[in-house]
């Protein structure tokens, strides 16, 4: 199922009498290819959950259209859209057993779609098998671990064979180890079923690790969409550059004069950009220790992190302390760097990407 959003907006009325209306989703157009796992990524309040609620039909858009393949589902009630949803807190009915929870959506079917008890049970077992919880069917949700509840919630969403699977921050309630495991699991289930899946998260690492495509949102608008690595390597604006990557990208304020980048009045790089103020962002792995490097920082200390080592230092043009990731073993008590190509990005003062003219 391909999902197409056309000029989609959701405006909430002001919360208080003096407040102004909130543009939770602002004229978003987007195409989600069939069978892909798409990550909706953004800080809290960026509109990603609203997007998800628009997709499943719990909210109706103020304007714009939602198409599932060629069907316009904009005005369709949630139950007619054929979507399965996994809620952040799973929303498993605590008084029902796992099996009863999974059966619940099937028992709602009416008319032509109505199933016999045997059909329902076989579908439920199939869904349970897919997420590997066959032994837990008679338990109540309270008797399950967080990861198991998560699987039940996915089984319940899958049991009615949805055209689209929606996951709202599915990993946020799990501990760190389980989170790694579960995200692989989600990837596996998505691959196995081939259902177009939209996955909301504020955790960029999570999104980058399992999604085929990610959409970075901020202030109700799409900042960039594409393959995770592609976005990381080629951010469209300062927001995206800052939002992706751990440790985060380092941001310097610099100047261009005579095709040369100056940071704190020291020439750093020749660049093909017009003169003026620029914002420069450098990935932590973009700092190369170099006795003759142009970037001279104040050395603060070393942080050994196993595989990598971080050189901690400061620079007058960068407000935050710098954490340069280098390979271990390099004897590096220096804080002079040269900068790796492709790890440095330029933005104008509004945060828009400046591409180097050739």
């Amino acid at each position, binding site marked *: 199922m391909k999902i197409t959003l056309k000029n989609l907006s959701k405006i909430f009325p002001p919360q208080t009498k003096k407040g102004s209306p909130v543009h939770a989703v602002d004229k978003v157009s987007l195409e989600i290819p069939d069978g892909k796992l798409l990550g909706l990524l953004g800080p809290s309040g960026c509109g990603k959950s609203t997007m998800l609620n628009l997709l499943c*039909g*719990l*909210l*109706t858009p103020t304007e714009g259209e939602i198409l599932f393949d060629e069907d316009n589902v904009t005005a369709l*009630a949630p139950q007619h859209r054929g979507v399965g949803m996994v809620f952040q807190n799973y929303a498993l009915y605590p008084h029902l057993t796992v099996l009863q929870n999974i059966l619940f959506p099937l028992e709602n079917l009416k008319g032509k779609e109505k199933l016999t008890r045997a059909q329902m049970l076989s579908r439920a077992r199939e869904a349970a098998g897919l997420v590997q919880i066959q032994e837990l069917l008679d338990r109540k949700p309270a008797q399950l671990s967080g990861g198991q509840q998560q699987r039940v919630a996915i089984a319940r969403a899958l049991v009615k064979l949805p055209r689209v699977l929606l996951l709202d921050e599915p990993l946020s309630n799990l501990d760190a180890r389980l989170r790694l495991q579960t995200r692989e699991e989600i990837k596996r289930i998505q691959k196995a079923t081939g259902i177009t899946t939209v996955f909301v998260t504020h955790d960029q690492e999570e999104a980058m690790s399992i999604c085929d495509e990610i959409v970075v949102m901020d202030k109700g608008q799409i900042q960039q969409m594409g393959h995770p690595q592609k976005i990381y390597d080629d951010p469209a604006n300062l927001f995206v550059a800052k939002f992706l990557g751990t440790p985060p990208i380092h941001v310097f304020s610099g100047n261009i004069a005579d095709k040369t980048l100056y940071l704190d009045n020291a020439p750093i790089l020749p660049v093909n950009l017009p003169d003026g103020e620029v914002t420069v962002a450098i990935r932590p792995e973009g700092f190369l220790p170099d006795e003759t490097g142009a970037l001279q920082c104040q050395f603060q200390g070393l942080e050994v992190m196993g595989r990598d080592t971080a050189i901690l230092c400061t620079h007058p043009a960068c407000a935050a302390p710098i954490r340069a990731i280098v390979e271990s073993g390099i004897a590096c008590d220096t804080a002079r760097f040269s900068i790796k190509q492709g790890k440095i990005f330029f933005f104008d003062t509004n945060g828009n990407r400046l591409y180097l003219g050739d």
Partner: protein
Amino acid sequence: MKKQTNPLIYIFLTLWGILVLFPFYWMVMTAFKSYSAYNAEFIPQLFVSDPTWENFTQAFTAVPLGTYFANTVIFTLITTAVMLLVTVLAAFGFSRLRFPGRDLAFTVFLALMMVPSELVVITNFVTVSSLDLRNTFLGLILPSVTSVFYIYLLRENFSQVPDELYYAAKVDGTSDLKYLWKVMLPICRPTVITVTILKVIECWNSYVWPRLITDDQAYFLVSNGIQEIRENGFGRDNIPAMMASVVVISLPLIVLFLIFRKKIMAGVARGGTKG
């Protein structure tokens, strides 16, 4: 998804609202009718044509409503204050201090929560009578100054205060009582307020015990006063004057409620049982 609220729901809620408010309306309206006007009505009239304050004057002069009122205020204040002292101390003992037999004692206390007041009122009546405390404030107040339930409620709340605070206070050389007063009570203020509110409502409306223990009008509380007014009242069936008394009696709690609406409703939701 915008949903239009079904107007039937509003109609239903409004109907119940009318049912709740109507007795109050009727009470106030009748209180302003003159005796003769009221008695001239064959078909009860929904409006006052000629409002008068005379009934309120009557309520305070023809019957000792002022005394009832003052008694109830005294009774409520003293009972609530003593009750707070007794229950707070006990709850503190149960929650914060360690001493031999504490947990057994608490279990016994919990068991006592099941005892209905109707079961013990008989002996209490005999006890208070034999102590010659009938028609005294002491007799009215004494049996009402402890409540196992409120001790329980306070204790649960006190137990939530982190132990570290107590240890910190001890390190600073704070005495137990000072800790209770300076740390525990301020932190647990909402529960203390809840308990106070519930007790005040209970006191203001108490009827059974005062009825047993007082037959001298000088010690009647408002509930008994109302019953007295109704049965031997104004020398005749003076309904408007009775309604004026009822208005006067009902007003304090309603005013209190309208001021502390949120606190009272939250408090009753946590600890109320009436009904």
